[in-house]
């Protein structure tokens, strides 16, 4: 870590992330210019497509739900000083958990099946994160490397299971039988229709509420609970934690279990809320977007919700944009995500130092 810089809180939590995002968009604009497209009309299509229509907004919030979960997952581990880049694998396994629960307990009514499915997702995601957590805590193997390996193991495992074991015998596609209908998490437009309010149909479902509840829970946990305090102490100074009677090994495993369970939320939203079956590659690289979300949101739930909204806008707007200006494919979002990770994560010191410099000069000028 770079030498600590004394920045006022507002500069640290709002200004520096904002500068990183603006810088990321400037670079992205240059890329758009570089391939001979107009960045201004691109921005207009992006905003129009994601926020301009009710349907677009629904899709934006659907993606936001995904990103809140993976962002929280990265953040909880981050507070414990762990870098969990295994969100992809954990969400994949969570999908397996959902499929196993839902397709084996088809006789249960919805009000039992839905919570059980969510628990299945959390349990499988947590288990897939617990192993790297345990290896880090007890055997000293580096969490980054093991979570990378576990991502690939998950993707190989799911291909094997879907092709050889879980696939329907008649079906050619590597996907499971559709989940029982009572296990579908209701779409938001259906919920609103019950109250007689008509909103445009989209993939947005009640999982959004779960994501917001999870954000509140993570806030309580990290900033208002004894365990959260222990997690933060281990994250900032493991040696001090030992003196305070906190076991870093225990906290490491607990933080990874929570992180993996949160990553499972991605599978809940995608599979129980929308696809209604387990299929290959439903995680679509969102696990890595979670890193960008957590870094941008300063690992704070409020920041994560805002950053998730931004990425929701980018993903939904990006899809519409690719329709209007075909040269700008959705890969643009991956590029922006990469630049944000670079600026808000690795080059963070660059902006912090610049801000600190400007602020001190102002202070001196006033004095």
């Amino acid at each position, binding site marked *: 870590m770079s030498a600590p810089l004394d920045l006022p809180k507002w500069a640290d939590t709002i200004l520096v992330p904002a500068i990183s995002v603006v810088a990321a968009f400037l670079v992205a604009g240059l890329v758009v210019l570089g391939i001979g497209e107009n960045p201004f009309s691109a921005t207009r299509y992006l905003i129009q497509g994601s926020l301009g229509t009710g349907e677009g907004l629904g899709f934006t919030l659907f993606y936001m739900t995904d990103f809140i979960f993976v962002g929280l997952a990265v953040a909880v581990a981050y507070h414990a000083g762990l870098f969990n880049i295994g969100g992809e694998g954990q969400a994949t396994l969570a999908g397996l958990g959902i499929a196993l629960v839902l397709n084996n307990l088809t006789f249960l009514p919805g009000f039992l099946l839905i919570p059980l499915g969510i628990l299945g997702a959390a349990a499988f995601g947590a288990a897939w994160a617990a192993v790297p957590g345990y290896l880090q805590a007890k055997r000293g193997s580096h969490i*980054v490397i093991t979570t*990378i390996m576990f991502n690939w193991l998950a993707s190989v495992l799911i291909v094997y299971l879907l092709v050889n074991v879980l696939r329907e015998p008649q079906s050619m596609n590597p996907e499971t039988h559709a989940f029982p209908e009572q296990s579908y998490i209701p779409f938001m437009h259906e919920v609103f229709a019950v109250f007689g309010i008509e909103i445009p149909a989209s993939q947005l479902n009640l999982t959004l509420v779960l994501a917001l509840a999870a954000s509140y829970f993570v806030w309580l946990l990290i900033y208002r609970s004894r365990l959260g305090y222990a997690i933060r102490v281990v994250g900032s100074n493991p040696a001090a934690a030992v003196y305070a009677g906190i076991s870093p090994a225990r906290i490491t495993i607990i933080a990874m279990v929570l992180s993996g369970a949160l990553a499972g939320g991605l599978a809940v939203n995608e599979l129980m809320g929308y696809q209604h079956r387990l299929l290959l590659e439903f995680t679509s690289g969102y696990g890595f977007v979670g890193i960008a979300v957590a870094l941008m949101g300063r690992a704070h739930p409020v920041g994560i919700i805002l950053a998730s909204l931004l990425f929701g806008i980018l993903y939904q707007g990006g899809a519409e944009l690719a329709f209007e200006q075909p040269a700008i494919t959705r890969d643009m979002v991956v590029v922006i995500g990469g630049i944000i990770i670079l600026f808000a994560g690795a080059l963070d010191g660059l902006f912090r130092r610049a801000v600190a410099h400007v602020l001190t000069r102002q202070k001196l000028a006033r004095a």
Partner: protein
Amino acid sequence: MDLSSLVTVFDSALRLSIPLLAACLAGLWSERSGVVDIGLEGKMLVAAFAAAAAAYAFGSAWIGLIAGIGASVVFGLIHGFASISQRGNQIVSGVAINMLAAGLTAIVGNAWYAQGGRTPPLEGVQRFGDALFGHSALVYIVLLAVPLTWFVLGRTRFGLRLRAVGENPAAVDTAGISVTGLRYTAVIIGGVLCGIGGTYLSVGQSAGFLPNMTAGKGFIALAALIFAKWRAWPALGACFLFGLLDAIAIRLQGISLPGIGEVPVQAIQALPYLMTVILLAGVIGKAIPPRAAGVPYVKER
């Protein structure tokens, strides 16, 4: 299995291990100097794209190689700037490099050629043809990099300093040698090697670039690096082993073995990852990375 099929498997194992070896040695140089590099995948990917695009545009595989190396070194320098000069988080920077590479190659490829992110097929002198025993020149360049890496790192003054910077940068600094300079040199050498590996993928092994054609090779190379315990000759062994597993997996597809039945391809594909996890867990032997790897150097400490 008869002799001729044994030779075929050996041959395809060598082919498959070359990109792994290039990336693995790149990681070795970088990490031995104290810069952790999980962006090997991304650097190979940009190199593969730049090489195919340049080879197509200029009609020469060698110009493709230069472009591939150039693109990879630029990405390496971004990583270097973030992790050495800015003392940023090296893992975060590596993740960013991988995402940038995946996104940029797809976008630019699509914008330039409008073939779903592919480059137009390369033929004739646009590709590296067979140079010796049915393998292209790049294969021998990468193989040659093994003794070269071993010699330079292990037997020269420069190599000693570079290794020292990865173990105890403060000691090197006290001796009046630039930590920053050595680490940048290592990152650039890593960029060159990834560039060769990526070029081999798109201009040697295949005839053109496909989106995301590295398909995790950079991460298997990372696994091989741990397996080789950050040493050059074992790196050759580990990469060949993983290449061999890949070749066997392809060979065994749909074949039933006596006594075992059909071996799922995925079981063999999972082996490199699984073996790395087991090794890292310290069950068989212990893999200890360079001591200062991942730690930015702060002079005033």
